[in-house]
């Protein structure tokens, strides 16, 4: 394609990125504002970061959220890799259509529906089997594993579809057992997809308000639940400070991943 950007496309790119990043930039700038009013600039201050450090409710919730997110991402990685592998490699099996639907539907299902129906499941299970007793970290994690599995499966399936199978065939011809081929050949080759899938499931879990609200119990208030209720009480610059810390963490992760990938590329 001729690499020519018309003036119209230039303007649209500028408008698009300004729209995407303007609000985020305003969050960061006003996190350093001395005034409580989010919209009036009263000089530079790190006051809100200090206050955030002393906000125990937020810290407690952040720990709970991290615990859930690590559990959910790891569970989703295991189940999602299996599901993606089965969808890509097992061409025919009974119930394939249903399985395909179950894997892709959580991607677009409105969260209120998923959240409500999972809660009803947990209540029904408790009534009939006596387990799980009440709701909390465990039930939120189970809900997030379900959501994350779908994302991991789609990423892994796409990676497997784009992958040269002759290496696996060569290993099989040389007498390696199928499970060994999977461990030594397939797994390292799909490792970037696994990392991306884990991170995606981790972020989704950390970010989820709706499903967590339905499936949580009294002792399992997650970070998004605390943020949501404090936003409803009114705008607070502490949330701006928290948002800025989030952004820094994401930026560090992304540049780190980029460096790692370039290092691996140059090794070859």
């Amino acid at each position, binding site marked *: 394609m001729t690499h020519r*950007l018309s003036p119209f496309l230039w303007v649209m790119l500028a408008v698009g990125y300004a729209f995407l990043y303007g609000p985020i930039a305003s*969050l960061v700038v006003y996190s350093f504002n001395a005034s409580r009013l989010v919209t009036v600039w009263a000089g530079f201050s790190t006051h809100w970061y200090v206050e955030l450090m002393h906000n125990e409710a937020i810290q407690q919730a952040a720990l709970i959220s991290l615990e859930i997110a690590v559990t959910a991402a790891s569970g989703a990685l295991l189940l999602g890799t299996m599901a993606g592998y089965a969808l890509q490699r097992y061409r025919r099996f009974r119930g394939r259509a249903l399985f395909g639907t179950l894997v*892709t539907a959580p991607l677009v299902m*409105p969260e209120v*529906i998923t959240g409500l129906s999972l809660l009803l*499941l947990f209540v029904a299970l408790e009534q009939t089997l006596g387990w799980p007793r009440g709701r909390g970290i465990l039930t939120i994690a189970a809900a997030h594993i379900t959501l994350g599995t779908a994302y991991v499966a789609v990423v892994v399936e796409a990676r497997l579809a784009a992958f040269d199978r002759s290496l696996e065939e060569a290993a099989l011809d040389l007498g390696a057992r199928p499970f060994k081929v999977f461990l030594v050949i397939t797994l390292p080759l799909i490792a970037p997809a696994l990392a991306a899938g884990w991170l995606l499931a981790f972020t989704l879990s950390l970010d989820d308000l709706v499903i967590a609200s339905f499936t949580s119990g009294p002792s399992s208030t997650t970070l998004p639940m605390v943020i949501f209720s404090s936003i409803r009480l009114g*705008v607070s610059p502490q949330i701006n400070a928290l948002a800025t810390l989030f952004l820094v963490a994401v930026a560090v992760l992304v540049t780190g991943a980029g460096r790692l990938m370039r290092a691996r590329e140059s090794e070859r």
Partner: protein
Amino acid sequence: MSAALRRRAVLALPYAWLVLFFLVPFLISLKISVAESVIGIPPYSALIDASGGSWRLDLSGESYHRLVTDDLYVVAYLNAIKFAGISTVFCLLLGYPLAYGIVRAPRRFRSLLLLLVILPFWTSFLIRVYAWIGLLKENGLINNALLTLGVIHQPLLLLNNAFAVYVGIVYSYLPFMVLPLYAQLEKLDPALLEAAADLGCRPWQAFLRVTLPLSMPGIAAGALLVFIPAVGEFVIPSLLGGPDTLMIGKVLWDEFFANHDWPMASAVAVAMLVLLLLPMGFIRRLLQGETA
């Protein structure tokens, strides 16, 4: 472990999990949506009445009756379709030129530009919606800027209305529109456009007759990825919306958390799901067509 057994295990574990935690929950909501709301724990009546020696199936259509006769639900339902639909169109109008611009940009900038579209998705959704409160408030950044510049003399009402909900949905779901469009436009063979030009097509004609028809699968995938979750959106209407922007997702939330009417909440969920089954069938085909 034999190969066949291993194969079965790889499939059975995620299959069983998804059936238990995704399919069965819907069947339970379906069941509870035809129960009656009662005061107790859990707050719904049993479906099978075993008292009096004989079994009796106790179905109640009360929740569905209210769903179609009470204006609140009908209006919220139509509102959700309206807000999600119009936002999808705006996402497309903004996202298409953006995706096209990225495809046309010099190769070395392409992955950076694409990364910049995905990046906001990795930061908290809730916080990105919150950012718009600061911008749109009565004494927010946009009003302050316009007042200082003398464009307006009275602050505009930008928050807690339909406008804010549209902005919120378009902003939050834009990456879901751009990514499938980019994937589709990148596959477009430039020789086709050259051929069109050789045959005397002006650039805009070539766009309308070649590029646009060939990008239809991307448009369809992007539109569905925005529309379906936006219909059930709860966070955006409750933080940015006002009294006239009631959407069905927020109604479901309120039925459950404020009114504790579980059968009604379930009926709302079932009705929403029925509406979305058709578009969800399409999205599955599009996604699986991509990888097959």
